[in-house]
């Protein structure tokens, strides 16, 4: 007669060191093996979409910084791109280049934070410190550019707010060269480590078919071997002028997602380098009406965010405030597959899988 063991109902979060924010996963554990897991979200729900309904478009931009607070430049790019596409506004060349430079640097910073926190979840303490030292350099560049260190509020409909202070472009170029050399230190430190490989290889595996059915996007989808990157497949802004290749994994496990993040940093470095070389002189703010009124209608436009496709759906009645504004938040959508991935795994794998899906709770609960 098998001994009757009782299942343990445990709460991982909402206040837990490695849930990357206030996510709570209610886990039914039999010994160390997870029998059933159910993520509970909503602890950071600030009702951004309700607030946006009585804010003018310029006033919404600071709120988008707080969606995915690790990639606020890209969130700005999403809302600003959506309004410009809806109103067909022209953005000057220099502003477009600045936007691409700033968005790609932000993507690098966000992937660096992923790399640091993922290793911290798996127990290695040092990579986190090295990575934050590099990210500090990017944050300093942004700080000198627009005055803030996390929530930048840098882009405006029709352009960007500030032009670069003198010496900024050269400093950015030096940073790009420095980070290129720094990347192989990370590979040497972590990617070869057998313990790390045993912890991530073959864990949290899913194939392209489930990924597409679960509306995954970004690195989660590309890690399964499916080539879908909005910067290439639905080109927006001036991404079609730069040549970079889309990083695609093979078998969609945690290791592939980890490698995709690191390779994507290298690709973003290439884009920033080209954009810095080609940046023209000229105004940074186009001609835009004083009160922005999006013509009545519905518009959806999406941007390749650091964690997936960040879409903005605007329903407007021609007034200066949107009738309805919905953010398609990649972390919110990518989190749906988690319960299916976790059943049958052990506790340590839960942390590895959750870390690899790379969610930010500001974006999940907007």
């Amino acid at each position, binding site marked *: 007669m098998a001994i009757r063991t009782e299942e343990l109902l445990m709460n991982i979060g909402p206040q837990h060191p490695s849930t990357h924010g206030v996510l709570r996963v209610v886990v039914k554990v039999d010994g160390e093996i997870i029998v059933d897991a159910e993520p509970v979200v909503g602890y950071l729900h600030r009702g951004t979409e309700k607030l946006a309904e009585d804010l003018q478009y310029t006033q919404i931009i600071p709120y988008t910084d707080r969606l995915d607070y690790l990639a606020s430049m890209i969130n700005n790019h999403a809302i600003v791109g959506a309004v410009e596409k809806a109103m067909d506004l022209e953005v000057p060349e220099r502003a477009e280049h600045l936007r691409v430079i700033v968005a790609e640097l932000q993507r690098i910073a966000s992937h660096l934070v992923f790399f640091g926190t993922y290793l911290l979840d798996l127990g290695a303490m040092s990579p986190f410190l090295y990575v934050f030292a590099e990210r500090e350099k990017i944050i300093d560049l942004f700080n000198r550019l627009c005055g803030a260190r996390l929530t930048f509020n840098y882009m405006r409909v029709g352009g960007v707010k500030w032009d670069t202070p003198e010496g900024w472009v050269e400093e950015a170029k030096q940073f790009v060269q420095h980070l290129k050399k720094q990347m192989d230190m990370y590979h040497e430190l972590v990617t070869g*480590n057998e313990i790390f490989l045993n912890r991530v290889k073959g864990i949290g595996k899913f194939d392209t078919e489930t990924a597409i059915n679960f509306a995954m996007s970004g690195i989660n989808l590309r890690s399964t071997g499916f080539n879908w990157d909005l910067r290439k497949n639905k080109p927006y802004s001036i991404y079609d002028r730069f040549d970079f290749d889309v990083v695609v994994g093979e078998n969609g496990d945690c290791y592939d997602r980890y490698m995709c993040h690191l390779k994507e940093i290298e690709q973003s470095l290439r884009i920033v380098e080209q954009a810095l070389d080609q940046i023209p002189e000229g105004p940074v703010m186009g001609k835009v009406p004083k009160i922005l009124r999006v013509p009545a209608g519905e518009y959806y436009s999406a941007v390749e965010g650091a964690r997936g496709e960040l879409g903005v759906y605007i329903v407007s009645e021609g007034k200066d405030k949107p009738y309805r504004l919905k953010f398609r938040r990649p972390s919110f959508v990518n989190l749906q597959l988690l319960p299916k991935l976790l059943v049958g795994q052990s506790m340590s794998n839960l942390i590895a899988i959750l870390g690899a899906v790379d969610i930010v709770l500001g974006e999940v609960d907007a």
Partner: protein
Amino acid sequence: MEMFTWLDKPMSGMTFLNMALGAVIVLGFILGVVTYTIYFERKVIGWMQWRIGPNRVGPLGLFQTIADVLKLLIKEDIVPAKADRTMFLIAPIIAFFPSFMVLAVIPFSATHIFTAASNVGVIYYIALSALTIIGVVLGGWASNNKYALIGGMRSAAQMISYEVPLAMSLLAVVLMSGSMNLVEIVEAQKNFPYVWYIVPQFFGFIIFIISATAELNRTPFDLPEAESELVAGYFTEYSGFRFAFYMLAEYVYVFAMSALATTMYFGGWEGPFLPGWLWFAIKVSAFIFFFFWVRATMPRIRTDQLLSFSWKVLIPLALLNLVATAVVMTLV
């Protein structure tokens, strides 16, 4: 110094007092060593991560650990309501006292008077270090917290399964030196092959180091108190001085294991021209540095990998090493 020669004196009030005094001196010495081991660890790992480490309290931050210990002393010692009270209170003590008793058997230097040069030194060490598991599991169970329970289960599985390869690798050394008495083992390393046991016992040493890291619950085997998974493992509910007990036990073991490693493989206090105790101090701090160095680099292993690594890899290798030593010993 005749008050410390109690070995050949009959047991009387006076000798007992001397023994107690000797024990207090060794305890004081160990507490000093442990305080500065903690400070040394925070500095080393800090320097490896491009940061400075504690430098605020006292000159160069030297009083930082003393301040921490004082803080833990005056902090409120919370006992959770539903915790199993008596077990909760004695668990840290059970975890701590073997770590301190184990030091009795380790010779710090040739003329060290507090070493009990007992003939069963190695067995004594292994037996006592197994007692800590009870303290850890009891602490995990008594604090009535799910994370602590899982932490306790994990550490029980880990410590038991890594006790075996540790003992076997030490057995190979005992085989070579022919005695269990640590003092004699150090003496044995002086004669015939004129080389420390690290050289003939190289594989044994690797197995020893891996299982020692697992015994001490240090990265990459720090599963019981995996911060990112179990919040703090078996001492989640402990605070104040009881938490300090667990920390003390862990760091005394780090010192004890490094001391054991030096005596067994690196010839204890042996060494040209420098005095014996200085050699011993250098070798022990080299080992301690190695443990901190590994902690700064390695990620954490998974529970099932941990157990299968011990049973499927380490123990067969240890057996192989034992057999090889035996064969070599008979031939030479």
